[in-house]
């Protein structure tokens, strides 16, 4: 069972506590949401890059020339 360390600063007592089923479920849900958000972010970035390259192609620019122009 995963655990967490909790230090009570008012007493100095450190306790290692097992995560509850709710905490584990929340952690898994958060991880799933994070993975989905990351995938969406990467897809959006890829789409934007493709759009840039399409515009560059219409203008007759190479990828290197486009990179230079945008840097």
């Amino acid at each position: 069972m995963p655990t967490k360390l909790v230090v009570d600063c008012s007493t100095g007592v450190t306790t290692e506590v097992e995560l509850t089923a709710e905490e584990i479920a929340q952690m898994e849900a958060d991880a799933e949401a994070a993975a989905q958000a990351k995938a969406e972010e990467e897809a959006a970035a890829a789409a934007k890059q493709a759009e840039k390259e399409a515009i560059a192609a219409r203008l007759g620019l190479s990828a290197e020339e486009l990179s230079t122009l945008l840097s």
Partner: protein
Amino acid sequence: MATTYKAIATVTVGSGGVTSISFSNIPQTYTDLVILVSGRTDGSGNMCMQINGSTTSYSQIRLGGTGSSVYTNTSTGQSGASGNSFLAGISGASSNTANTFGNAQIYIPNYTGDRYKVGSSESNQENNATTAYMELFAGVWSNTSPVTSITLLTYDTGGKFVQYSTATLYGIKNT
């Protein structure tokens, strides 16, 4: 270290590792807080921080270097395995040289005030290779509550701080 620093609490992770390290019931008698971490995780090494257990209202900027390149980004907090939070720095990663630990210093000024809370951190990894990350963060928690607890978490799903990772919370007085 300046005499105005006082170590409030320190913790060392035992065998088996832990998913998070929390400082609770933080005394409201200092001006600023500092957390020094010597840490290593069993994953990427990314370390997050939540204030008062909150999983909302974070935003941040990041500047980092890998040893061969640099990067920057901004985000509305970090949606990691631990839910929304600050990214608080980089600790040692499982891919780093064995038995090395990353270092981070996290600074939280005016933590008892009634304004939004800000924080910054600087951190680095120890790795006997070209790739060794260092990162600077600055962030804001858009909440006016006094900071009474701080939790450090790993970014990775099911990730843990490994044995012998340590964290020390200091209180700083301005006189």
